[in-house]
Each structure stands twice: as structure tokens, then as C-alpha cells.
């Protein structure tokens, strides 16, 4: 670690005090933090390299660095309309807490009002197996896996900013943590008409996407049926009586 950082950590102002002041004035952070605590003692002066290490201790850290030691800042949601739910899962509390903290900070600096992390109920799975590889069922052993979950909800988020936030978290994904996000978008009234208008443009993009969604296997079966029914062996029996007396129309096969 940087010697400047490690030596000045003890000099930080009282965390409870500064946390309150920082969060009260969250929206204008740089201006507010400069005016807090004792300005004469902590006024920032760039330290010349030849300074004595003892004097260096009195130099205050930049506020952005200081904030790392404090609880993450938050923005207030004005309307409280949910725009994104991010769920994180892990087997390790440390990693999960760390990454949830990171996500909250990222949301703050992107200007997104975030609430959380909400500790969702953990998922406990248990397995009981015999200790021996052969018989001896009376002596068994229990194993378990606890999946811990945290939920971060973004409110009043601009959809693009939310996407940026999610992409940022994906880019800095932490080991041993799975993430999933539900994103909501809101439209004006009369969505149907606008969607109809934009349908033609979307058609090209949608078709490529739809082709990936699992109808292909069913189509393969339907094609196979038609192929088989048209074969001579199957055609030969066509004139014979139907199994059911009332004739049903021969529709192309559909599967539900």
C-alpha cells in the first residue's frame, strides 16, 4: 500500500460525524466536504516530495479517497419508481458485501438513486452421503451449501444510465459472484400506436432474435411428419377408413 495512505488513515476525522455530513450534502459533494471539519488544520496543500514523513501525516486525504473508508453515499429517489433490480449471489459473505458496496458507489457516481443492499433469504441446500464408499449406511455425513443473496434496487434511473451501470459491474465482475438484473422501462400512454409505427423498423432485428428462441426443434418435428406422411408407404393406406368416424380436417401438426 501507498505509505501516504497507510500513515494517514489514523488521522481521518470521526467516521460517524463525517458520514452524516457527507450524506446530508450528497448532491454537492466536493463543495460540501471542503467546508466540513477543521479547515485550518486539514486544508489541502500538495506535499512536496522532500517533506519529512512526520509532517506528511498531517496532510489530509482527498475526499474521494476518504469516502472509500466510509459508508457508500446515496442519492435520494425523487419519485421512487423502480427501474432496475440487481440480485447478486455468492457463497462467500466477504466477496458479496464488498461487491455490493462497490455497486452502490458506482451507482452514486453515475447519479443513480440506489437502495439496498437488501439481504434476501439465503438458500440452504443439504446433502447426506454415507462416509464409506461401500455399505455402512449407518455412518453418514452431512454437507451443505449456503447461497447468500443481496438485492440492490435502482429507482428513477435513466434507462441508458442503468445500462451503463450494469455494463460497468459486468466489466468489473468480482470472482465467485453471480448477478442477475430485472430492468423496467416506462413508456408514455398510447404505447400500442407507437409500437405499431416502429414495428417495421424493428422487424429485421427481431427476426434474427426470434430465430434463436426455441421453436426450431418443434419445426423439425413438423417437417419430419410432413415428410413421412407424403412417403408412398404412408400414402397407400390413405384411402382406408379413418380411425374416427367423423372426418377431421388434416391440419399441419401443432404442438402446445
Amino acid at each position, binding site marked *: 500500500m501507498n505509505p501516504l495512505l497507510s500513515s494517514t488513515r489514523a488521522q481521518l476525522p470521526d467516521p460517524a460525524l463525517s458520514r452524516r455530513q457527507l450524506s446530508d450534502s450528497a448532491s454537492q459533494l466536493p463543495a460540501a466536504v471542503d467546508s466540513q471539519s477543521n479547515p485550518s488544520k486539514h486544508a489541502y496543500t500538495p506535499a512536496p516530495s522532500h517533506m519529512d514523513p512526520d509532517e506528511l501525516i498531517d496532510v489530509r486525504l482527498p475526499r474521494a479517497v476518504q469516502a472509500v473508508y466510509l459508508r457508500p453515499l446515496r442519492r435520494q429517489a425523487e419519485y421512487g419508481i423502480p427501474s432496475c433490480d440487481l440480485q447478486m449471489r455468492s457463497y462467500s459473505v466477504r466477496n458479496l458485501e464488498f461487491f455490493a458496496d462497490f455497486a452502490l458507489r458506482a451507482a452514486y457516481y453515475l447519479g443513480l438513486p440506489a437502495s439496498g443492499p437488501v439481504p434476501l433469504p439465503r438458500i440452504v441446500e443439504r446433502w447426506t452421503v454415507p462416509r464409506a464408499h461401500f455399505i455402512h449406511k449407518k455412518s453418514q455425513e452431512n*454437507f*451443505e451449501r*449456503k447461497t447468500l443473496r443481496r438485492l440492490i434496487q435502482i429507482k428513477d434511473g435513466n434507462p441508458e444510465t442503468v445500462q451503463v451501470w450494469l455494463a460497468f459491474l459486468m466489466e468489473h465482475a468480482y470472482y465467485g459472484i453471480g448477478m442477475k438484473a430485472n430492468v423496467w422501462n416506462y413508456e408514455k400512454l398510447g404505447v400500442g400506436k407507437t409500437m405499431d409505427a416502429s414495428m417495421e423498423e424493428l422487424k429485421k432485428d427481431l427476426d434474427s432474435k426470434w430465430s434463436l428462441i426455441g421453436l426450431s426443434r418443434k419445426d423439425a*418435428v413438423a417437417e419430419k411428419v410432413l415428410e413421412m406422411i407424403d412417403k408412398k408407404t404412408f400414402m397407400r393406406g390413405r384411402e382406408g*377408413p379413418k380411425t*374416427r368416424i367423423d372426418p377431421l380436417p388434416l391440419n399441419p401438426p401443432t404442438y402446445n
Partner: protein
Amino acid sequence: MSMFRAKKLDLGCFVNIRVIRDHTKRKVFAEHEPERQALRYIIRNLSLPASTRAKAQLQLTQMHCYTRPSQIRNRCIEGGKSRGVLRDFKMTRYNFRMRALAGLVPGVKKASW
């Protein structure tokens, strides 16, 4: 059946003949699934002539046994055993225990509650 088997080994886990056989069955089943489903559809479709459906029945019964899904059995990726395989880990109970005790299965610990 060796005619279905891949000419070159296409498996990366523990390998013995039973594992290879099961793997072959999975591939053959996947390949022939549309055909099986088509025949099943013809057999059950009451609007088709009886003889067509009877022929489809015959054809379905004459398909190779490797094309049946019931031939597929989950096997241990560590030792190829077919019994006592935990679905969550694709391992037999003993292999699972050894690996879990060694800390090689993510998140799994000895439980005590």
C-alpha cells in the same frame, strides 16, 4: 453399438466403455429425436388412416434402441459409476464426499445444524 460411436474420442472427463456408450446414446437420441416425435405424432393423430398409424407404430418399434431416451443414464464424471450419482454435482456420493472435504466443490462445507 460401434456404428454410432465417434471414430475419435470426443469426451474430456473420466472415460471407460460405459461412459462412452452412454455418451453415444445421448448423441444418437438427440439426432433422432425429431423422427421419434414425428412418429409419435402420427400414431396419436386420430384424423389419419389406421394403416398409416399402424405403419408408424411399426416403424417406431423398429428404431434402434439407442434412439430411445430411456437408455440414457446419468454417470459419474469422476469414476463413471451409474449408481448413487448426485444430480447437482454429476458425481457419485463417495467422489462427491472426497472432493467436498478437499474443498474442491464451490460453496460446499460440512454441515452442522
